[in-house]
């Protein structure tokens, strides 16, 4: 069932370096520059740079506690901002609250508790479009087409679905506003191995339809294989940035971060 999508690596230089900003200035969708952030007084991220171009598929990998999820949360306004800027579609969104950022066209799927368990599947999707005056029928149809199981289970309580189905629902909810950038935090976490591939295929499909994806993944090798570009984070700082397969084949990265 897995139609492995071979991706052509985007044109660009191929050597692993410590550069943190890609050589494609001017078409950036998301631009993070020198970001310092954390929780309360505790600083987690130091001077983090990150870019996502329109339609690009970018992964963040790194050891536990590297601050991968914190980058996502900081982009979405869920952490204490301590310095640096976040720019989206040329507009400074640093320090905006989540309910303001969602208006800008960023969707966020957190790792845990990412569905409203006591609401039905359909109600969860409707909540995804809360900021609109009415539920957008075409977006709903698109979500149902992408995840047919959600259409079948429309009136089921989300909390009674399997982990994989809940993950699809969480993505569906985030897609209701047809965001230009989707932030995915560990989409394969907690899934049975059989479903992990399926989940990655679905993410590929979302990206193929033009939505830029920024994803944090434990399953680093598979994520790097599928993405356009990857960032390796360690101790809250940028370590490496390059095309996914370049990172995947880099000896140093393999040894230090991908388990050999």
């Amino acid at each position, binding site marked *: 069932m897995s139609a492995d999508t071979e991706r052509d690596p985007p044109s660009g230089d191929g050597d692993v370096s410590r550069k943190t900003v890609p050589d494609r200035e001017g078409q950036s969708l998301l631009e993070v520059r020198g970001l310092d952030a954390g929780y309360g007084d505790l600083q987690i991220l130091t001077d983090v740079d990150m870019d996502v171009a329109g339609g690009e598929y970018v992964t963040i990998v790194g050891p536990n506690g590297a601050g991968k999820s914190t980058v996502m949360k900081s982009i979405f306004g869920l952490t204490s901002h301590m310095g640096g800027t976040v720019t989206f579609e040329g507009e400074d969104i640093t320090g905006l609250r989540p*309910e303001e950022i969602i208006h800008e066209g960023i969707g966020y799927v957190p790792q845990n*508790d990412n569905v409203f368990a006591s609401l039905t599947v359909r109600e969860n999707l*409707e909540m995804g479009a809360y900021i609109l005056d009415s539920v957008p029928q075409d977006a709903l149809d698109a979500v149902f087409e992408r995840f047919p199981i959600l259409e079948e289970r429309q009136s089921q309580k989300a909390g009674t679905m399997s982990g994989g189905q809940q993950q699809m629902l969480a993505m569906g909810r985030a897609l209701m506003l047809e965001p230009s950038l989707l932030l995915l935090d560990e989409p394969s976490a907690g899934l049975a191995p059989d479903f992990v591939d399926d989940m990655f295929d679905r993410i590929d499909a979302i990206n193929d339809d033009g939505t830029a994806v920024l994803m944090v993944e434990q399953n680093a090798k598979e994520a790097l294989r599928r993405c356009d570009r990857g960032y390796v984070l360690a101790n809250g700082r940028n370590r490496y940035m390059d095309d996914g397969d370049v990172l995947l084949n880099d000896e140093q990265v393999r040894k230090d971060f991908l388990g050999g």
Partner: protein
Amino acid sequence: MGIAETYTRGRQFAVTRPGSVLLALVGVVLLFDLLAGLATGQHSFSGVGSLVWDGLMRGLVVGLAGIGLSMTYSILNFANFAHGDYITAGAFSGWATTYLVAGLGRADVGALLLVGAGGSVFGGSLGIGVTGTPLAVLAGILVSGVVTVGLALFVDRTAFRPIRDADGITLLITSIGVAFALRYLMQFVFGASVRGTTAQPPAVGLYLVDGFVRIDAHDVALVVVAGALMLAVHLLLQLTKLGKAMRAMADNEDLAQITGIPTERVVRAVWVIGGGLTGVAGYMFILWKGTLGFNDGWLLLLLIFAAVILGGIGSIYGAIVGGLAIGLTASVSVIWIPSAFARAAAFFVMIVLLLVKPEGLFSGRTTA
């Protein structure tokens, strides 16, 4: 499904849930005692019927008043002890309006606005009641709701919002302070006396085996208003965008924020809806029982807490069912025990049921 299997399952249940079995046994003994009493003529059918009806009415008052408490609990995560005094505030504001509309020109305006403080005007002599002065009652219901909404929003703005992110205990203690302030402010303005508020309402007797169960016009008004409001809340929660957002927020506030639900606006809506229901509940409570004092809401609050906890705190359906259970227990228990222990019986039942089902009757169901 052989007998042996049923037997095994029954044994297993008895071993794993001894509390439930004991409870069922006690229930059977009480029921047997009641049937024996009815057979020997110690209790009359109509007497028991009257107690059940009275219990249902009390249950409706408690349930209606409990919805607001349950709502604020599920959305704001704290037990609002000022809720009882919101009930009283609704009652005084509504009844001042009713007195004013019913007695204008017949009595001093000041005395009417103070709901006959110090025995200056009597509701009975003004002929107040749902049939005697329907307009005055309707105006009272509306004003009680509106004033309590205003009060709830004002208190939220001044007392609760500044400490929204504090833990539940801080909010709870703050709410106790608000409760005292409100209660004694009302005592200061309206006086400490308990006054009669209504004239004797017309009633019908329903024939039941050996006598009559008396149902008066105010019982009917209570059933209509409480039923309509409960249905309205149900429809609001299930069908409207706001109601769904309220349930979503009760479910997972962080996710609600990420999804773009304007959480502060939802909180305000909760106070508006919860406050309105609470004020009207206070008004209907007084209409039904016919007397009004500054302690009424506070005293009712204990029963409301029992009902809300019994139903599974945070669930509005739990609040309604819990209210009916508590009301029925408090009324019907006098068949077996002296009436002075009726309240105690209600709490006893709550404790026992929670021992058997600690999460409450409706936990995990749709909340808001």
